[in-house]
């Protein structure tokens, strides 16, 4: 069974600070995705990384896929209260997600004004 270890599990910081969330595995994934989930809603896809070493930016969010495709990180610059939410990393084993995604346990992020 492939596992994704996500850390930290909880993070509360002040507005304007930077933060990094990590997603690690001992297994290789064909892709890693990051989702954000708001209370009472389903996860919403933020980004997909496919190539080892790939870096993608989404405004103040920077996503990186490890060279060996076993780990990923999410870095938020100058965090805003609107960034508050549950961040989930998820890996696909095969070249599509047809057999479902393996999720990390999530990072509960709170940005205090």
């Amino acid at each position, binding site marked *: 069974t492939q596992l994704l270890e996500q850390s930290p599990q909880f993070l509360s910081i002040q507005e304007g600070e930077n933060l990094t969330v990590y997603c690690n595995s001992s297994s290789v994934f*064909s*892709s890693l*995705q990051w*989702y954000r*989930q708001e209370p*009472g*809603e*389903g*996860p*919403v*896809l933020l980004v*997909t990384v*496919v190539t080892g070493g790939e870096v993608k930016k989404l405004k103040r969010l920077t996503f990186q896929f490890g060279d060996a495709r076993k780990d990923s990180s999410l870095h938020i610059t100058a965090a805003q209260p609107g960034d508050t939410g*549950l961040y*989930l990393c*998820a890996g*696909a084993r095969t*070249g*599509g*997600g*047809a*057999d*479902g*995604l*393996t*999720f990390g*346990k*999530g990072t*509960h992020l709170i940005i205090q004004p």
Partner: protein
Amino acid sequence: DTAVSQTPKYLVTQMGNDKSIKCEQNLGHDTMYWYKQDSKKFLKIMFSYNNKELIINETVPNRFSPKSPDKAHLNLHINSLELGDSAVYFCASSQTWAYEQYFGPGTRLTVT
């Protein structure tokens, strides 16, 4: 214009009952999924299904069964509900060759 929808949003029922949750997607995707999210927010795949193949997570009890009347729908039937089935159930869809999955809003099931 909802992409993946689920009904009902909330479901409260007693132990031993049989219930169904419906899911519909209007994205034209050919693969659909059911996930279970526990009280600690951990999401776990239960089933993935397209018109050719059903992949079942080996840990899912056979009281749970997906039924797909067509490509746009994947319903989840649960027999003989147990207290431990209480969770939020999410439907998702994707193109089989794609990585990205799109999730519904979830159904919170409470078994009393």
